[in-house]
C-alpha cells in the first residue's frame, strides 16, 4: 500500500547512537521527542509494506539562525546536519528499512515547513507523509500549525503522530502526561 514514505523531522539530533548532543532547551526537548516518535512510527509502518523512507529535515528560519550561532558558521552547521542525518540513515537501514539518499539538498534555506513538506511529497511522489504534532498550543503558530497545513494541502495520505501517553484529553484540558 505504501511504497515511498516521506518522514518530516523538525529535529535530527535524535539518532540513538548520537552522543554529541548539546543541552536542549524546552522547545528542543519537545522537538526531539516528537521527531523521535515520528521516525519510530515511520520505520514501523514501512516494515509491513516494505516501503522506503525519505528523511526530510525541516527547519524554521529561527532554528537555522540558532543552529548557525551554535556551530559558528553556516558551513559548520550544515556539516553537523549531514553528520546527524547519516547516523539516522544508518539507524533506519539497521532496522531493515531502505532509505532514499538521492534527494539530499546540501544547502540550508528557510521556508514555510508545511509548504516544504507538501512540495517535496508532490515532487518525490510519496504516497505517505509522516509528520509530528509539535504545536501543543497550536494557536501560537497560527491555525493548525505545520501538521494542520500538511493534512490540508498534502497530495497524499498524511499520518500525524501523537502518542497516547502524551496527549490532551478530548475536552482540550491541559492534562499532559509526560513520559
Amino acid at each position: 500500500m505504501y511504497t515511498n514514505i516521506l518522514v518530516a523531522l523538525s529535529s535530527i539530533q535524535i539518532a540513538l547512537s548520537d552522543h554529541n548532543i548539546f543541552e536542549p532547551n524546552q522547545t528542543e526537548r519537545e522537538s526531539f521527542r516528537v521527531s523521535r516518535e515520528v521516525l519510530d512510527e515511520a520505520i514501523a509502518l514501512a516494515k509491513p509494506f516494505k516501503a522506503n523512507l525519505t528523511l526530510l529535515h525541516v527547519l524554521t528560519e529561527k532554528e537555522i539562525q540558532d543552529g548557525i550561532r551554535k556551530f559558528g558558521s553556516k558551513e559548520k552547521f550544515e556539516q553537523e546536519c549531514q553528520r546527524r542525518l547519516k547516523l539516522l540513515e544508518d539507524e533506519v537501514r539497521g532496522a531493515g528499512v531502505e532509505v532514499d539518499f538521492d534527494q539530499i539538498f546540501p544547502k540550508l534555506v528557510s521556508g514555510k515547513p508545511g509548504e516544504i513538506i507538501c512540495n517535496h511529497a508532490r515532487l518525490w511522489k510519496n504516497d505517505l507523509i509522516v509528520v509530528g504534532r509539535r504545536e501543543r498550543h497550536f494557536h501560537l503558530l497560527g491555525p493548525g500549525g505545520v501538521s494542520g497545513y500538511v493534512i490540508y494541502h498534502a497530495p497524499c495520505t498524511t499520518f500525524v503522530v501523537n502518542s497516547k501517553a502524551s496527549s490532551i484529553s478530548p475536552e482540550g484540558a491541559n492534562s499532559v502526561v509526560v513520559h
Partner: protein
Amino acid sequence: MFQKILVAIDASERGQLVFDQALQLAQATSAHLMLLHVLSSEEEGSPNVSIIGLEYYPSIADEIVQMHQKQWVEYENRGLKMLRSHAEQAAAVGVAIEFTQNFGNPGRTICEVAHTWDADLIIMGRRGHSGLNELLLGSVSNYVLHHAPCSVLTVQGIVHADSTTTQDQLADVVL
C-alpha cells in the same frame, strides 16, 4: 504497532477510499477496526428540511415534520446499511471489526469515541471543502487533529492534475 484503529467514514466515495486504506492497514498490522459514522446535518445527503416558522402554517406543519422524521430514519438506515456492508468486507478478509453510528458534532464525536474505545489510531478523510466552506463549517479533520487522544491518519481524496511542483518551488529546502 496499532491494535485499535477507529475509522471515521461517511457515505461518500471518499468514505470508501478511507475504508479501503483502513482495511489494508488493519490487515498489515493485525489491528481491530471500529467503524464510526457520525450522523449530522453537516453531512452530504442528510435531511435538511427547515422546520422553522412552521407554526404559522399549522395545516401543513404536521406533514412536514413527519416527512422530516421519515427522512432522518431513512438517512439512519442508509448509514447502517453502509456500515454493515463494510463490516462484511472486513470479516471476509479476517479483520476483526465493530461499528457504531452516532448523532452529533462530527469532530467531537470522533474524539470522544476514540477516547472511550481507547483507539491508538484514527483514520479519516480530509473534509474536502474548499476555502470559505472550510472556514465556515470548520474542518472536522482539523478539529480531530488537535483534540485526538492518539495519532491521526488522513486519507486524501482524488488528487487534481494541476497540483504539480517544479524544481524551482523546491528552492527553499533544508538538508
